[in-house]
């Protein structure tokens, strides 16, 4: 099978999966008790049933469930999630405005987390201090919840030392400040990724190191660093890729707590607030983006798998 055909097939399966996720979420929301109109009006007293009915009609909630599901799926195809109940704006626009922050955070955290993890994992096999760093600091970082880690970083680097701002976003028009404000949240997200990747890398290197071809490499007089890069690390990367994809896939919607700590408004916090007021269009839109991201990461990792291991793609 050619690469193009392979990718095409994977993308089609991915699209089908996104639709499945949407249907499941749609049904799940219906099952959860609570009504968006009542949730919206709970703060206001003395509203008559006619107002409630009018609102329900406006949001299209009066139609039977199968019709709403169909409308929703048709809307998806046009990337139209409907009008947000709470903001009275198209849900798509709101999500788009929040997505930039989230994507920036996740991509940077992924990049530094994965490269840092591979580097640390390699060092941990080669040097004593690297081993200590990974085997002692790794579990510490992984056992501390993200928001605590973030708070500690703010306390140390921002409040005590004053090196970096504690939170918020700066516009792209001020690149220096933009980057300065991103440093702490990115570090907070990247550290646990790096810890996990370092551990996996270390384990895989120790595994690959015992393989016969590594002995061949040494037996043919290759310098240690060539053997390490060409015959150990390169082969160890395949499982590292799998773990990286798993780590990253779910990250885009899971940054809520870090967003809270650093006062950022990303996709995660949008999703949480939408769930609490039952803003169906926003929930479904956000879930759409998150599942699409997850599936895209998986497709990319599967394709890269083929490049890393010829036995996969050539069969």
């Amino acid at each position, binding site marked *: *099978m050619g690469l193009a055909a392979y990718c095409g097939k994977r993308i089609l399966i991915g699209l089908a999966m996104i639709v499945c996720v949407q249907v499941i979420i749609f049904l799940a929301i219906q099952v959860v008790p609570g009504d968006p109109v009542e949730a919206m009006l709970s703060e206001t007293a003395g509203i008559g049933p006619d107002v409630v009915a009018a609102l329900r009609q406006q949001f299209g909630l009066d139609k039977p469930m199968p019709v709403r599901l169909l409308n929703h799926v048709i809307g998806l195809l046009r990337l139209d999630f409907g009008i947000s109940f709470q903001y009275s704006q198209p849900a798509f626009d709101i999500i788009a405005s929040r997505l930039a922050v989230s994507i920036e955070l996740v991509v940077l955290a992924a990049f530094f987390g994965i490269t840092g993890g591979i580097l640390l994992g390699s060092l941990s096999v080669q040097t004593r201090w690297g081993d200590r760093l990974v085997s002692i600091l790794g579990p510490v970082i992984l056992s501390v919840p993200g928001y605590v880690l973030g708070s500690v970083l703010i306390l140390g680097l921002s409040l005590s030392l004053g090196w970096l701002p504690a939170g918020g976003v700066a516009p792209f028009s001020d690149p220096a400040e933009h980057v300065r404000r991103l440093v702490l949240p990115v570090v907070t997200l990247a550290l646990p990724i790096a810890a996990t990747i370092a551990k996996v890398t270390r384990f895989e290197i120790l595994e690959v190191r015992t*393989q*016969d*071809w590594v*002995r*061949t*490499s*040494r*037996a*043919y*007089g*290759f*310098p240690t660093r*060539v053997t390490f890069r*060409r*015959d150990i690390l*390169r*082969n160890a990367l395949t499982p590292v890729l799998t773990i990286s994809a798993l780590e990253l896939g779910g990250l885009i919607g899971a940054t809520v707590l870090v967003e809270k700590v650093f006062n950022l408004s990303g996709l995660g916090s949008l999703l949480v607030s939408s769930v609490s007021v039952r803003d169906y269009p926003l929930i479904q839109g956000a879930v759409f983006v998150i599942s699409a991201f997850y599936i895209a990461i998986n497709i990319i990792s599967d394709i890269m798998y083929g490049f*890393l*291991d*010829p*036995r996969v793609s*050539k*069969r």
Partner: protein
Amino acid sequence: MGILTPEATAIAKPPLLAVRGLNIAFGDTGIVKDLSFDIAPGETLAIVGESGSGKSVTALSLLGLLGPRARVTGSIAFGGEELLPYDFGRLTGLRGNDVSIIFQEPMAALNPVYKIGRQLGDVLRNHLKLSPAEARARAVELLHKVKLPNPEVKCDQYPFELSGGQLQRVMIAMAIACRPRLLIADEPTTALDVTVQARILDLLRELQAEMGMSILFITHDFGVVADIADRVLVMRHGEKIETGPAGDLFSAPREDYTRMLLSAVPSLERRDFLEDAPAPSDDTTVLEFRDVGITFYGRRGHELKALDGIDLTIRRNEVVALVGESGSGKSTLGNVAAGLLRVNRGQVTIDGRLRQGAGTGKDLHSPGVSMVFQDANASLNPRMRIGATLRAALQWNRRYKPGLDCSDGHIRHLLSEVGLAPELFDRFPHELSGGQKQRVGIARALSVKPSLVVADEPTSALDVSVQKTVLELFRKLQRQYGFACIFITHDLSLAASISNRVVVMNRGRIVEQGPAAEVLRNPADAYTRALLDSIPLPDPAAQRARRARPAGPGTHP
């Protein structure tokens, strides 16, 4: 191997490699003790020994490949230069350059993620200053030299796309890339079929004649020794037992251990046939295959006929040896008999009941069939004590044979029947030796009183001396209980020594069958002849005579 006899060569020139008082220890355990030997330029020295003799460790120590835990002392002088204590900077210049090495498992010895040409090119560029294009050209040239078919195409293929024999040629190309003065070959043909082995040995001999390098050949196989060695060093438990020119050692071994090893090699020349075995007196048919076929379907419509129209009948008391090379379908046939594979066509009848074919149900399992596996270690659950393993088999089979005795006493009796101490009942598999584990495997197979035993290469992972005792046990039990047996093996001499009938398979078909003595003495089929001719004779003179003969028409397709 020039005009001079090896002995004369050794006197004429100083040795290329001189090892004196070599001691190798891992922690407190001495693996090699006070070993000394020489290799003259152009000479082939074979180190022979069973597992644990320290032969491979000795080979690896020459290049400092044993890792940091090994303590290597004594003297290793190569080309007059002392290598001990190791100077790894200097060794790096030597490895793959003046001294190169080939290994037992060519598939594992090459990195699976790089193309053949790249791996070969890397070796060239590591020691010679070449551009990538020059390296590639040289790589193709080398692959030509080791007679790999289609070198230009193979260059751009990955190791998993080549066969074991082809990969070993690639390894040899890698080894001769920088024209070494010494080639270490660590069991290079053990994982290969006999016909492939014969051609790899031919290749090594030709290359040696052309390039004049010395070869240190590590092996456990006396046939291979007879085929390739000028001189032989026999090792046991890390010590030298004896050494001498190959001819003398085979014709007049001085030490008991060497004699024992030589006599343990099953030999066709020694008429080591099972002639005293009574012909099966009982006419009960245990297994009947009628026109059995299995086809495996791969991608892109690729088809593999693993079994193609097999007709086979086995009676009680009969041992049938299935022989053939890897891929011949012999294990597939065994698996069908054991009810592990579904056939595409034909009928399988076991103990008079139709098991596969039109009108049979989904269940393939035949209660009357047991298996003995090749890898005794992998076929025993490492977390279960020996007694529990045997009891599990008995308990499971009680649903078919309620009369089976599961008591501890009976299990201990089973252990003693296969020559194991009843105390092993409470041991774990890792506490047993390879031979003991295979005895447990036999006890497990026989405990359920089978009418048919499928033994799939049960001794090929064992040392020859152990193999001999396990085979004797198997033969004794077979006579005692009279079960029918399919004995799968790649070793024709072994087949002759254990079976009443030999069935030769090639590409999913039976090419020839008949009484062992007849098939092996007067093979009717060209493929059988090719197989027989490929087995190196454990006698240097006979082997040399055979090699001098022009190749017969019975070459492998």
